[in-house]
């Protein structure tokens, strides 16, 4: 039970980071990134290919994450521009459909070129005993890294000018513009950051279990559910929802079966939409 809980917590942290990336992009541009998981997997496969070619693991990881960030920036600067320009009700739908297309392309390329490629960064060594629980080394590393990312994100959004500018654009784009903030620039940087965060999650996941090239859609859906339960646009909500759903997911997968855990996740999203459409944390 204890070990399962720890696994769930670590998975939940990963879900949280995925959800934060998704929710930020939605909060800024109204775009629901249906290719979020595919971007993460792309980063993983880039890293795996580089390691195969003899590049050192650390450098390969950095390049993989950077590639996902760069992809985010490119998507934002090119095909998302018509979405940002569109001021009608159809904007959200257009954004959804275009990101869906991006997801098809990334998934298709991965399936075509690297159908059996997988990234495995398993951390070796015996499990560590902590408070009477045997915890895998990979899990400890993963939680430490995610903890660092989480703290860095909080510091970024609270104490840097750019972080504050981002929050102000989420709250009121027109107001932010009047204060001299360039919303388009903020959106581009955050889309890149979101891609890099997704890439980091793929690296972290690879420390405990291999990331296969077909995992994209699944990751996207996890991120979507987390973002909905946390309240679209809410960073802290997404993080909390990620941890909760990660624990629920792991417990139900362990005790009942994987297919039940995914049904529970869908139910969680449905119940949230019905009862608290604004998410876990925010007040109505």
């Amino acid at each position, binding site marked *: 039970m204890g070990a399962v809980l720890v696994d769930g917590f670590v998975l939940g942290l990963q879900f949280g980071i995925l959800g934060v990336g998704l929710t930020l992009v*939605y909060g800024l541009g109204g775009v*629901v990134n*249906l290719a979020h998981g595919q971007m993460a997997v792309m980063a993983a496969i880039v890293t795996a290919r580089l390691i195969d070619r003899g590049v050192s693991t650390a450098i390969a990881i950095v390049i993989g994450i950077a590639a996902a960030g760069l992809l985010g920036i490119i998507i934002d600067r090119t*095909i998302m521009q*018509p979405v940002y320009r*569109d001021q*009608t*009700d*159809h904007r*959200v*739908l*257009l954004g*959804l*459909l*275009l990101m*869906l*297309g*991006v*997801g*098809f*392309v*990334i*998934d*298709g*390329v991965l*399936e*075509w070129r690297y*159908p059996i490629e997988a990234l495995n960064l398993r951390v070796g060594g015996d499990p560590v005993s902590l408070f009477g629980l045997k915890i895998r080394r990979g899990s400890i590393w993963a939680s430490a890294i995610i903890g660092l990312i989480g703290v860095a994100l909080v510091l970024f959004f609270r104490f840097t000018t750019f972080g504050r500018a981002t929050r102000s654009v989420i709250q009121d784009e027109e107001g932010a513009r009047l204060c001299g903030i360039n919303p388009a620039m903020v959106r581009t940087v955050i889309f890149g950051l979101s891609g890099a965060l997704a890439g980091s999650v793929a690296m972290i996941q690879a420390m405990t279990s291999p990331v296969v090239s077909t995992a994209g*859609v*699944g990751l*996207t*859906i996890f991120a*979507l*559910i987390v973002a*909905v339960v946390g309240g*679209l646009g809410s960073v802290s909500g997404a993080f909390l929802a990620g941890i909760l759903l990660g624990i629920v997911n792991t417990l139900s997968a362990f005790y009942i*079966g*994987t*297919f*039940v855990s*995914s*049904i529970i*996740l*869908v139910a969680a*999203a*449905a119940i949230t*939409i*019905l009862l608290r*459409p604004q998410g876990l944390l925010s007040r109505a």
Partner: protein
Amino acid sequence: MPDSTRSQLLRGYAPIAIVIALLALVPLWSGDSRSMMTVVTTGLAFGAYAVAFNLIFGSTGQLFLCVGALAGIGGFGSAILSERTAIPFVVTMLLAMVLAAGFGALLSWVAVSRSLDTIFTGIVTLAFSLSFENFVLGRQDLTGGENGLRVEAGSDTVLGGQISPYYVFLAMLAAYLVLFRIIQTSHFGWAFRALRDDEVAAELSGIDVARYRIYAAAVGSAMLGLTGATFAHYRSFIGDSTYAFGNVDVRVLVMLAFGGIGTVLGPVIGATVFTVVDELLVDYASLREVIYGVVTLVLFLSFRQGAVPAFTGAVGRLLGGGRTLGSAAVEDGSGGAPEPPDGGGPGGSPADEVATEETAESR
């Protein structure tokens, strides 16, 4: 008065009849080859999926990303029921259809009962697709998991022949098209159009927006379930890939976007074109999803009306108002002013004008 009703009837149903009659001729050249018949019959099944998806997405703007899952509920539901009980397979198909309709209505109800429904519909249905796939893989005792499921029932009927299943699916497609047309010209159709054009105004004029969306989702899901069930008994073998998101939803979305969202014949045109494209690209099957993704992006970036309406619109303008089959279908499709849910500007600008405008903009 009776005269104008008759011409309206002709205008509405003649294109459907012509297309169905043309499709009925296909076995004349493909009938000798069993594999070709499988290809074209599957193409018709996808046409039927696309019509159903068009009813949900094109008419009421609900992006249902679970076409495959709902069809799979029909397919697996009917297959499992007919194998395990003594109920005749025609009845199990109908039961599975009702089951799919129930799921579709439930998903729609969850998503549309709140604001932000565009996003919620996409998310909830996509998540539903994942849990359906996990269910198929997880409950091996019921669904056969990765090994798939043999479907014996129905193989000794018309669904078991080489050519006859084609006409079963053709009849189904014709029925769906007529039903789509009937719904469009009924007060449901007016309500759909009103809420698509301006949801707030529709709500203010007394249309229960959420209720009409749920109705459309239920009817469309019933179509998906019935088609999926028929497909299962026709193929006599179904597996986790038969109704997978990547195999069904991706294609159906591209077919509809290509043919023209919200139009009557768009789904059929799209299904025909992409069945041919798939056959041409059969040696590059692994590239298929990339191609579909690129086509999706190009379609939604440049021709938000759908490629076929844009093309026929341009042709129609060149010929000085000469009407082609496709443009007739478009005009009938949305009452003279086609505007798909993701169309750009306000008002009913003609398809060709919007298309050229958007193309220029995207460059």
